[in-house]
């Protein structure tokens, strides 16, 4: 997703590579869907407030409309056994995809044992302690800041 956004933005020719990577830093440091943050920042840079509003609308509207069109059908048929089995099978694929993302992140993480501790703490707070994910995430970030040292 990130690579795709970057490529498309570069292709417009309105933004320099440096501007794009600065925006990427902000977009990923702040909450909210990265695509929305990026469209806001790029839209604002290129055409001010109106540009930002227009770009965000462009990012949000297509997925919104696709789901809205499907929702009526799905709400009616989601209880059906065949539909349930379809989604059960599909959730195996979702698990595989997330598993691969986790694996790749673990492999490419440059922070060594410090990062590993933070990953374990954050996940354990959610899964074992059942705290609100906000608290888990904030604890993870704080813990990482306290540990200091290397990391990318």
């Amino acid at each position, binding site marked *: 997703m990130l690579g795709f956004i970057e490529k498309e933005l570069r292709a417009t020719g309105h933004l320099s590579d440096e501007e794009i990577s600065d925006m990427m*830093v902000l977009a990923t440091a702040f909450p909210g*869907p990265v695509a*929305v943050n990026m469209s806001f920042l790029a839209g604002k840079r290129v055409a001010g407030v109106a540009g930002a509003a227009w770009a965000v609308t462009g990012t949000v509207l*297509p997925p919104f409309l696709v789901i809205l069109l499907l929702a009526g059908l799905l709400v009616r048929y989601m209880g059906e056994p065949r539909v349930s089995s379809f989604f059960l099978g599909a*959730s*195996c694929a979702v698990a595989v995809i997330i598993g691969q993302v986790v694996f790749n992140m673990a492999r490419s993480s440059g922070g060594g044992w410090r990062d590993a501790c933070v990953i374990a703490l954050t996940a354990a707070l959610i899964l074992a302690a059942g705290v609100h994910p906000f608290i888990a995430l904030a604890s993870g970030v704080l813990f990482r800041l306290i540990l200091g040292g290397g990391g990318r």
Partner: protein
Amino acid sequence: MTSTLLSLASVFARIGLGAFGGGLATIPFIHYELVVSRGWLSERAFSEVVSLAQMTPGPLAINAATFVGYRIAGTPGACLATLSVVLAPLALLVSFLFLLSRAPGDLRRGVERVRRALRPAVSGMLLAAFWVVARPLVRDWRLLVLSALLLLLSRTRLFSRYPQLLLLCAGGVGALLF
């Protein structure tokens, strides 16, 4: 109805504000807010929403907001939930940009430090997301076999380029077998 709409707005504003580090890392937030804390979705319905959101284009948080909003309060609910999930984090970003225009140097360094510290915490969220999705699957050996096959398939060029195709195939197999 009004109170339902209000709680939809506040739930999805919170999910939006928790959506650090991209779509999949939002899963624990959506799970907590909709399944654990509100009981709006069963575990089964939750995993259906996540699969649906992965199959359709667009950020996961937006897909989930539109669908759950619609399910709970029709088209007005879909609009409101989607607006909340988008506008709450944007409001935060806008106020920060305003601060940044006043005191650029220190804040910029601060953002960079927080972003670096966020990385492993977001990985932890992803690990939690993985288990939230995989937990209901490990009880059934047929689902484990299917997952193992999908893992092999996902490494082929076709499926690694089009992950949505993998979901559709997996769904098709699921509908035929289970």
